[in-house]
Structure formats: structure tokens, C-alpha cells
């Protein structure tokens, strides 16, 4: 059968792709042209709006020799540690909520997921007082800790663990494996897709964080990328070239991660949203 395409849906798909990418492309181009040119070729719109007369790396060099380099390093460190520690804590909790049988399991499950589903930002202001009392302001621990417990990650891992037959654990126990061995040698190796999905959830949460780093780490030494680029916008004389450069670099890393793990990302969405 010959496939016929309607032009309408294709036009919408192309338009949506352009709308999704164009602001980033414009920001990227602006970061690579002399600052004076950024607003020069806007009106009327022409090919010059998106094609610089000359390409300069001055903005990028200035950006990376300033505060932003430190902020990018902070973001990468904080996010990597959040994903690593968060995966350990969330998968352990999910194991206890899926593989082990005991009274009150469903109560613990409900209480934990509902507590974690309360969006973090809604309690960020009082939590910042708690963290100040614990002397965690302007520290990596203060930035990392809120990201390590994530309800969606626990939920996703538990759903996956529930699909692993209990007979496997029982057979392993006959072979002399304890519960910790069953967790590390059976559940974790079998759950790679769910672990990647949960890791992405933890990653996105921490990389996007803005309110919390603003509250808990006002010292520029502990600024993360999202706070650092916002501080460009707050300056009296905004350096648009550097600001756009910072915004594009802050966007590129999650886009790269998503490009690599796209399949797992969509699968994890499907399991939180649509599965019965």
C-alpha cells in the first residue's frame, strides 16, 4: 500500500521543532557575535538576524574565565553526587517496598510517596531555615541533600522491582545469599532501565533547581549554573553575549544527557503516567 502524507501534520511538527530550538539557536548565535551586533540586525528580520557578520569567541572566553566556570563545576558536582547518592537511597527504599514482605508495607509506601510528592519548592523557604540551623548554608551538602529523596524515583523503581519474581530471591537464599546480596546481585543488575530512568529524574530535578540554591547558597563560590546566569540578568549593565553563552551551556548539558538516554526517559514517563 502506498503511503500518503498529509502536509498539515508535517507542517505542525516542523513548526513545533523550530519553536523549540529557535530561541536556543538565536541565543547561541548571539553569544558568538560581537555584543554590539546582538540587537542590530533584528528589525527588519533578515538572514543577518541569525548569521553573524563575524564570529568571535570573546564572549565565551570571558564567560569561562569568570564566575560561570566555577558555577558550572558546582552544578556538575552537585548533580553527579545527587544522582549517585539518590539512586542508592531510592533503590534501597524501593527494594524494601517491593521485595520484602512485612506488615504495614502499603502504609509505609503511601506515606513515603505522598510526602515526597509534595513538591520540594513549596517547603523550600521553611527548609532553608532548618538548613541554616544545621549550619548547612553555603555548602555542597546543603545543595545536594534536598535532591537525594525523590518520590517519583522510588515509585518508578518499586514498580520495576515488583516485576522481579520472588522465586529468584528464594532460590538465592537457598544458595546462601542474604537480603543485601539479593539486592546488589539480583535486583540492581536486573533493573538497569529503571535505574537509568530514576537517575534521569534525579538529574533533571537537581540541574533545574533555582529557588533552593538561591536560598541556601548565596555565596558566589557556591553558585550553581542556573543562579549564575540569572545574576547576569540582574546586573545594571547586562553583558548579553556572556549571558546568552551561559544560558546555552546550561541548556546543552541536559540536552546531551537526554539525547543519549531518550529511550529510558520516555519509558520512565510512561510508567509514572500511563501504565495500569
Amino acid at each position, binding site marked *: 500500500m502506498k503511503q500518503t502524507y498529509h502536509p498539515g501534520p508535517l507542517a505542525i511538527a516542523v513548526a513545533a521543532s523550530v519553536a523549540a530550538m529557535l*530561541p536556543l539557536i538565536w541565543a547561541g548565535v548571539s553569544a558568538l557575535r560581537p555584543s554590539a551586533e546582538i540587537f542590530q540586525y533584528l528589525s*527588519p528580520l533578515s538572514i543577518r538576524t541569525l548569521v553573524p557578520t563575524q564570529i568571535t569567541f570573546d564572549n565565551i572566553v570571558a564567560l569561562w574565565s569568570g564566575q560561570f566556570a566555577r558555577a558550572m563545576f558546582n552544578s556538575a558536582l552537585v548533580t553527579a553526587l545527587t544522582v549517585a547518592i539518590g539512586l542508592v537511597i531510592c533503590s534501597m527504599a524501593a527494594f524494601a517496598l517491593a521485595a520484602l514482605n512485612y506488615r504495614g508495607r502499603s502504609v509505609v509506601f503511601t506515606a513515603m510517596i505522598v510526602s515526597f510528592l509534595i513538591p520540594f519548592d*513549596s517547603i523550600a523557604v521553611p527548609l532553608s531555615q532548618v538548613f541554616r540551623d544545621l549550619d548547612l548554608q553555603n555548602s555542597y551538602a546543603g545543595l545536594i541533600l534536598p535532591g537525594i529523596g525523590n518520590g517519583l524515583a522510588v515509585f518508578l523503581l518499586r514498580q520495576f522491582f515488583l516485576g522481579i519474581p520472588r522465586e529468584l530471591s528464594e532460590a538465592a537464599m537457598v544458595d546462601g545469599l542474604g537480603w543485601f546480596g539479593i*539486592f546488589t546481585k539480583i535486583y540492581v543488575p536486573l533493573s538497569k532501565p529503571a535505574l537509568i530512568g530514576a537517575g534521569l529524574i534525579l538529574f533533571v530535578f537537581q540541574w533545574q533547581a533555582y529557588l533552593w540554591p538561591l536560598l541556601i547558597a548565596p555565596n558566589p563560590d557556591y553558585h550553581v549554573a542556573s543562579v549564575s546566569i540569572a545574576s547576569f540578568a*540582574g546586573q545594571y549593565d547586562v553583558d548579553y553575549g556572556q549571558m546568552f553563552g551561559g544560558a546555552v551551556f546550561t*541548556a546543552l548539558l541536559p540536552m546531551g544527557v537526554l539525547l543519549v538516554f531518550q529511550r529510558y526517559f*520516555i519509558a520512565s514517563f510512561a510508567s509514572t*503516567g500511563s501504565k495500569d
Partner: protein
Amino acid sequence: MMTAHSSSQDTATAHKAAAAPKSHRTVSEGAVAAIFLAPAIVAVLVLRIWPTGLALWQSFHVGAAGRFGLANYTFLFSDPSFHDALAATLLFSLIVNPFQIACALGLALVLNRDLPAGPLWRTLVLLPVAVPQSVSAIIMGVVFRPDGPANALLATIGLPAQGFLTTPEQALYTIILIVSWIGVGYWTTFLLAGLKEIPAALYEAAVIDGANSWQQFRFITLPQLRRPLTFVLVADTVANFLVFAPVQILTKGGPQGSTNLIMNDIYARGFLSGDMRGAAAETGILVAIVVIIVAIQFRMMTGAKSE
């Protein structure tokens, strides 16, 4: 006789020996669970319960002596800034959620079709979903400057320049466009995942029965998509309730309080005006609203059988 007796005793001992580790195991399974759960429970207590409790505690205490009272709440409900924040948040929610979900549904339906270079378009729409809202605010804030590309585009197609973020009439709608740049792609991903799970056989049967594309959408797609759609509706509502970065970076709640969404109002109350108890009371109200929405969300994530 003796042999029989001793053998039955042996069996009993053997039974006991076999039963012992089993009963030991059922007892310790709860203990093992406690160990595995401990870090997550500590995290829940410190990161969710403690701050919520602290906010409630602070919100019910007034004056230098810190006596118990409702004054923080009565003040809040008489404060025009809080009224404006509630009104702005309500208006924002009523527009941004239907707008994003309608766009996401339309886009998911389009991207689910068999298009030329289909995976390319899906990837391009998906890519920005992990971009932080602060990045969106930074870039789109300049796009919507009066001398920025948005007005340049309007001029090119012969439309008058708009004020966007600089006028109280348009600022909130501009914020809606800014958060939707990333938001629409994000929710599209959920709906696309839901569409993929609808069995193709349903559509094939409908085509044989002579159903047109509207009828297929109305009687197959929509009912089959009900769960992911409701999930997206609830999760989107919660997320948009807490929009903060674009407001704090671009408008600080202005002009004339028109973009003073509730998270910005709490932040400004606590950290710019120094009224931590007022901020705590407002946090209490926010958490109460959010808990209701979250309870619905949890039911939908787990309770499929309640139909």
C-alpha cells in the same frame, strides 16, 4: 518401638530445624526492610515533615513573646498583596494549564503519526524539556524585550509592537508563553508515551466499521488516553502552581503585581520584607492546596482498579 519413637523425635527435630530459619526469616524481613528504608525515612522526616511542621508552628505564633495565635493568618487574608498573589496564581493556572495541555495533546497526536523524518521531529521537540526554567527566563526575557526579536517578528508581518513584560495587561501572558516553551514539550512526552500504548487493532477495527478520524479520536484515542491525560493535568497543575524562576528573574512580581505568583509572594514576604511568620502562614496555605492535588495524583498513579 524405641526406634520408632526416636525416629519420630528425629523428624520433629528436623521439622523444628527447618522451621526455625523460616520463622527467623519472616521476623527479620521487617527488620531488613527497616534498614533498607532508614535513609529514605530520615530524608522524608528532615526534608518534608520537619519544614512543614516548622512552617505551621511559626505561622501560629505571634509577637515578640511568640504567643499562640491566628494573627499571621488574619493579617495575610487582609493583605492586598496576598489577594493579588492568589488572584494572579488562579488566573495563571486557569490559562496556562489548559493551554499547555491542549498544545501538548495536539503535538503528541501529530508526532505519533507516521511522518517523514518522524524521529527527528520527536527528538527536537523533546530535547529542551530538561532545560532549566531559569535558562528559559534568561533567553525568552530578551526575546520579549520591547526591542527584541518578538516585536521584530510582529513588525515583519505588519503588526504593532507589544509591551509584553513591561505592561500589567500582558506580563502574565508573556510569563505563560515563557514557561510553555519548555512545558509543552515536557507534557507532550507523557502523552506520546500514552498514545504508543493504545493497541493499533482498535483503530483497524474502527476503520473497518467506517469511522472517520474525528470519530476515531473521540471514541478510541480520548478514552484510551484518559489516564495519562488526567496524570498530566494534575502534575502540570502542581508544577505551574510553583512557578518561580521566570518571575523572580524577569519581573519580581510586577508590573503592578500582575505577575506576583504565590511562590514569589512567599519569597518576597520572607526574604525581602523579613516577615518569616507571614511567609510561613502562606507556605501553610500553599502546602494545604498542594497536598490535596498530590493526593489525587497518588490515587491516579496507583489506583487503577477504582473504575
